[in-house]
């Protein structure tokens, strides 16, 4: 038995799955997964082999993989990259299974969620994408001295760097620090470099945000004016703004007050 190692990105896992078909008696393993304590196998690193070679050998043995030229292929790769960020450890087996299914049937079959694996894979991708999207909206930033914007995020999956990247694009002349209390991580961009740290005193770092910021107070005033009591619909509000996203937000406290 040989183990094929791959990294957590689409092109690596695709190469690994193709290699597994070319070599008999193999097992796939992500590099981030812990080593087996009882058994050790000879390992092949999929990243060390060029994709051209693998595709060429695969084509000779099994024929052309049509969907590699498909317009949806880049979207599929994007979905794989997002699914790798899911918090559940079964994502590796799921991604491998989805790729095997795509080779056996068709990529469209998987993308249309027509199979159980395809559906679960889509749900994983969707959950990660929603996590990024929600944090883009619900994260509050506080302008500090020397053009620093500091904010708190609340991520379910491994998405902190994606959220940071989004804010870097939005505020290209600002240093940005995002603190993820749930993961106990801080993501920082100092206009040149991007870094991830595990601060000793995260609690202190997250309370740096000023309570008496005048514009935050203006925002509270403004937000309260936007509520139309005649159209009260807390069920709808909770559907879009569930408790897990509340993240010490003023808006959540306001909603809480209006819940029956």
């Amino acid at each position, binding site marked *: 038995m040989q183990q094929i190692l791959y990294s957590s990105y689409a092109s690596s896992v695709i190469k690994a799955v193709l290699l597994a078909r070319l070599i008999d008696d193999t097992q796939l393993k992500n590099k981030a997964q812990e080593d087996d304590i009882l058994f050790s196998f000879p390992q092949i690193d999929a990243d060390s082999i060029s994709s051209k070679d693998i595709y060429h050998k695969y084509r000779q043995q099994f024929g052309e993989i049509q969907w590699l030229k498909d317009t949806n292929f880049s979207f599929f790769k994007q979905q794989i990259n997002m699914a790798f960020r899911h918090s559940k450890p079964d994502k590796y087996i799921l991604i491998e299974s989805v790729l095997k299914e795509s080779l056996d049937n068709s990529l469209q079959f998987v*993308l*249309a969620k*027509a199979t159980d694996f395809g559906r679960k894979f889509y749900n994983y991708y969707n959950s990660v994408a929603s996590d990024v*999207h929600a944090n883009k909206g619900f994260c509050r930033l506080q302008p500090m001295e020397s053009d620093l914007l500091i904010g708190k995020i609340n991520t379910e999956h491994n998405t902190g760097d994606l959220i940071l990247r989004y804010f870097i694009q939005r505020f290209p002349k600002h240093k940005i620090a995002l603190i993820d209390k749930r993961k106990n991580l801080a993501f920082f961009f100092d206009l040149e470099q991007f870094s991830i740290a595990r601060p000793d005193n995260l609690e202190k770092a997250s309370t740096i945000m000023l309570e008496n910021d005048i514009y935050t107070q*203006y925002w509270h005033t*403004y937000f309260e004016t936007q509520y139309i009591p005649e159209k009260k619909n807390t069920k709808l509000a909770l559907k879009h703004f569930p408790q897990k996203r509340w993240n010490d937000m003023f*808006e959540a406290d306001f909603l809480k007050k209006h*819940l029956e």
Partner: protein
Amino acid sequence: MEITEKLKILGNAAKYDICASTATNKKHHISGGIGNTFQHTICHSFTPDGRCVNLLKVLMSNECQGDCFYCPSRSTMDIPRTSFTPEELSKLFIEFYKRNFVEGLFLSSGIKFNTSQTMEDMLKACEIIRYRYQYNGYIHMKILPNSPYSYVERACQLANRVSINAEVPSQEHMGKISKSKHWEKDILQRMDWIKNLSDKKDSKNISQSTQFIVGAASENDSSIIQSMNRLYKTYSLTRTYFSTFVPIKDTPLENQPAAEPTREGKLYQADFLLRIYKFKASDFVFNTNGNLPSDIDVKLAVSLNNLQNFPKEVNTCSYSELLKIPGIGPLTAQRIVTLRRNNIKIESLAQLKKIGAQIKNAQFFLTINGRLQGNITFLISKIELERERKHYKQLTLF
């Protein structure tokens, strides 16, 4: 007046204006500037009425020469009046944006002294935001009725989206809510200018939307849908929004009952069916008072009224035919067509459900490989039973 007070007054006065979407293509790009636009709408918070708050939605001024009968800012109302200066508003907005409270600006206004002066203030605020603060993000600007062409043109250069409220479906209805506004001259003509400006080759991305007030002019859904359809076709609107009429104290319409809140939702369904599902305005079914049926899904009602067109064979009918089946949306229809192109057929309802169809309604209107999946008479009797049940009342012992 303090900014807090101004925000209370001018924020409150703008809350009935609607612009839900901030999704737009890149328009302004100042290198190193603040902000960007995004292909998807981002919501930053939700009020207890379930509406997303993603824009700083304020009036430049609530001082108004207008006489709209439903409006809390109409000239005869005895309310505190105030205005933002362009400097104040632009600074406030950019600070909100930096804190990620909002995704963009939605700027409207009452008519302070005259339309030109008010438009000038609004444009000045937008210019400061764009050029002094180097803002590349989303701006939605209201065009005031009767605005001169040059101001409309400048608004189209500065904003990502401009809109002028149609408010009502026709001039006849306009007479019921305002004596000073002329529907065709003051509103439709501006829509036409915007369309022509956006059609120009050198124009950067600019989209146009409008808003109806539902129930203020005793109009029915049928007239709104006819009018909306005409506006979409003639002026290439991107979207139409609906705001249910709520009577405001001390206005001429204070004793008029509020419109049914469900009407707003039904009109949005009709709007989506028109724009995305490519239904025709004549397809819709209305009850005796000309409104969309409130107890049944709009698409389902259309399908039940056109039973001669069903069932459809899911493995052979076209994309546009699939869209007519209740429970099948554009994404599911696209998936079915793509699977078909790859020689994969739908074999069962369970498979159809997996790819995203709402089987509950869809099953009655389709066949899979020639096999009927549900009995339509069962669905009709179920709907009738539901309707009858609504007339029954649980008796009490006391």
